[in-house]
């Protein structure tokens, strides 16, 4: 492999141009920020058994060993051994491990971004109990610091950090939100000074699935809870999380946190967006530096609670044979296991489960920002074939999920593969089958 191969093929934004030395220094800085006793323990524990490969849909689809999850963090294992491991002084003294080069880092861009959805399935298979996905997330941070985040993710994260929106839109999302309200004849609670629940919305829904936005407004209205969107904290997604820019991720989360605090919300309700849930529920407090003064809940969790409390009643939904895709960030990585199924049960839906479901579900293939990376598409399509087959194998007529990114990915597959299934939003189904309470 020639020396500049990595760099010349890297997928970089012009803003990320810098010298190789600066890249390595940046990677080491990012790495230093991430390394701690826990991540060190994970890197220490690997026994090179290769079993994690068998959890990864990229490896399963291609049988290409480079897609072995733990291999994706190889430069960071190397850096750990040389910089921070207990024997690091020996490694440096005797040169057992060389310094990671900028080229090697650039080569790994493909492995850390294009071929990893950060779905966490590998973390369930490792016999040593290593959370490989956590290591990949940390590695992405070092890659970001090295200026090696893929240009799509970099641009969106940068834009979102600056403006609150991952991309410029013809009309501000606030206006689009209100337009959706009038189009679907539903009241959009916006910028209330005080509310129990603060709402936010995936910009994917605004742009592609306005029905889901309306559905959220409708169920909130139906339940009669005090809730509001906030113009200054509207977008649920967090491209900082995808790109590995921890500071940007923090800044992006901060918009929502500050707005939730400003309106005195007790709950920040995460809409149908998986990675937003991870970013807010399981990472925001760490970046914020203290525990959040409100709860972070996924909309299905909220609805399931209302259901159990008897405040929400649902009609039977006529869906025919139905299956459900568990979004990785919500279920495997987020622990939202029961809520979606409780809602479906309440609507009388008997699921024909996928061969791998619940915590073991395969990723749709679009997670981790991969859907946004243009050059990753061919590999992504290969990896998701297995997922589509699993869905087909259930023979289900209706296919539900509860993450807008997953939906986008499946819709994209629908076009690419001329696939005959369409993913439906669980939230929309709930909104369509609300049963008036007390009657």
């Amino acid at each position: 492999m020639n020396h500049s191969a990595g760099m010349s093929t890297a997928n970089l934004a012009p803003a990320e141009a810098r010298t190789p030395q600066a890249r390595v220094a940046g990677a080491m800085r990012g790495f230093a920020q991430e390394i701690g006793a826990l991540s060190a323990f994970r890197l220490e524990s690997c026994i090179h058994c290769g079993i994690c490969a068998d959890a990864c849909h990229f490896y399963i689809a291609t049988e290409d060993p480079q897609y072995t999850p733990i291999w994706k963090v190889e430069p960071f294992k190397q850096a750990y051994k040389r910089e921070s491991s207990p024997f690091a002084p020996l490694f440096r003294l005797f040169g057992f491990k060389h310094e990671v080069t900028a080229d090697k880092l650039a080569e790994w861009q493909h492995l850390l971004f294009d071929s990893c959805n950060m779905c966490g399935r590998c973390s369930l298979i490792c016999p040593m109990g290593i959370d490989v996905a956590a290591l990949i997330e940390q590695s992405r941070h070092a890659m970001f610091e090295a200026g090696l985040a893929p240009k799509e993710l970099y641009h969106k994260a940068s834009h979102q950090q600056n403006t609150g929106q991952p991309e410029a839109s013809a009309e501000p999302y606030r206006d689009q939100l209100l337009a959706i309200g009038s189009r679907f004849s539903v009241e959009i609670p916006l910028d209330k000074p005080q509310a129990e629940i603060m709402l936010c919305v995936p910009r994917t829904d605004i742009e592609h699935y306005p029905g889901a936005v309306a559905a959220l407004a409708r169920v909130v209205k139906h339940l009669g809870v005090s809730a509001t969107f906030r113009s200054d904290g509207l977008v649920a997604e967090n491209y900082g999380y995808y790109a590995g820019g921890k500071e940007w991720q923090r800044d992006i989360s901060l918009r929502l946190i500050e707005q939730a605090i400003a309106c005195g919300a007790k709950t920040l309700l995460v809409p149908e967006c998986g990675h937003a849930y991870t970013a807010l529920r399981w990472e925001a407090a760490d970046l914020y530096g203290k525990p959040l003064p409100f709860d972070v809940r996924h909309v299905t969790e909220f609805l399931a609670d209302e259901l159990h409390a008897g405040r929400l009643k649902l009609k039977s939904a006529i869906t025919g044979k139905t299956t459900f895709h568990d979004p990785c960030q919500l279920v495997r990585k987020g622990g939202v296991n029961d809520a979606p199924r409780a809602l479906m049960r309440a609507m009388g839906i008997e699921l024909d489960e996928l061969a791998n479901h619940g915590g073991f579900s395969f990723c749709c293939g679009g997670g981790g920002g991969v859907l946004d990376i243009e050059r990753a598409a061919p590999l992504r399509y290969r990896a998701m074939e297995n997922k589509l087959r699993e869905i087909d194998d259930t023979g289900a007529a209706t296919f539900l999920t509860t993450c807008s990114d997953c939906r986008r990915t499946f819709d994209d597959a629908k076009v690419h593969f001329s696939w005959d299934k369409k993913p439906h939003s669980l939230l929309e189904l709930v909104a369509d089958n609300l049963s008036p309470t007390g009657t």
Partner: protein
Amino acid sequence: MTHGRVELLGEVLLRHGISRRSFIKYCTAAASTLALPPGMGAVMAEQLRQAPRPSVVYLSFQECTGCLESLTRSFSPTIESLIFNTISLDYDDTLMAAAGEAAEAARTKAMKDSFGKYVLVVDGSVPTGAGGGYCTAGGRSSVDILREAAKGAAAIVCVGTCSAFGGIPLADPNPTDAWPVGAIVGDKPIINVSGCPPIPEVITGTLLQFVTTGKLPDLDQHRRPKAFFGNTIHDRCYRRPFYDQGKFAKSFDDEGARNGWCLFELGCKGPTTYNACATIKWNGGTSFPIESGHTCIGCAEPGFWDKGSVYSALSTAAWGKSGESRPLEVLELGGAAATVGAVIGAGSAGMSRLRQHRAEHPSNNEPKDG
């Protein structure tokens, strides 16, 4: 006992009234102890009858006379003990009637008459400390006597672990600076018959084989005849099946010991000791230590006295001056090492954190990112 013609052994035996059948019978017994094929007894009988009367000079140095006790403690004289104790032994200061200058004269005469042909048997180690003064006879040190006697010897047979390997005198701290014979005499064929003491049949059997064939027997790495020292006690031990079954006595007085189970855990050195105790046995084939319920102490092996406790099992750690590790000593050792490890570990963690800190907060001269 000088003759103009060399007397054949057969003639001497006949004068002592030994019949052909007796001779075959004892040679059969000897062949058995030598681990020769059973049919060799008769062949040996014929060869021996035609052999010249051997001359044996027996020297005792720094020793306890246990070896000689063993040699003469055969319950009744076998043919080979008859040959060596009565017929051929031209000098042995312990056994011979003569004493003082007469004894010294007998030795000188035997060595002169049979120069180049006699077998020199030595028991005891050779002390070299204090100018050899720890062991003298007739005013001469054992080093001198040995060197002189070795000159005319056809071969030297070292009887007992002391002469073969230095034995107990050589054991730490070796106050007399004792050495085995092989360390003093370098230019003569040496056969070591180790053991503390050696089995009498092994001593006489070795001599017999040398006399019969005129050649050195097959020797192992410690110059011991393979015929007797080719197998470990463990390999030939009748308790071996219990070892294989994992049945071990845990004390000398437990049920396992009474059942005759393997004594490995009690420190038996059978697995690393090469001798014929388990087959030839002792006291005329009556028994041997393990059969009597005691462990093998490995007395036929070099340095047996310094290889840890007789009662600590072979597979245990053995270090320290006494050649033993105390139980739980490893915790002290490990604890000390672990403390050092903890300090170094903390140091390396501290260094890593410092480097982390520096990487996070690069100084101004380091490249800025865009």
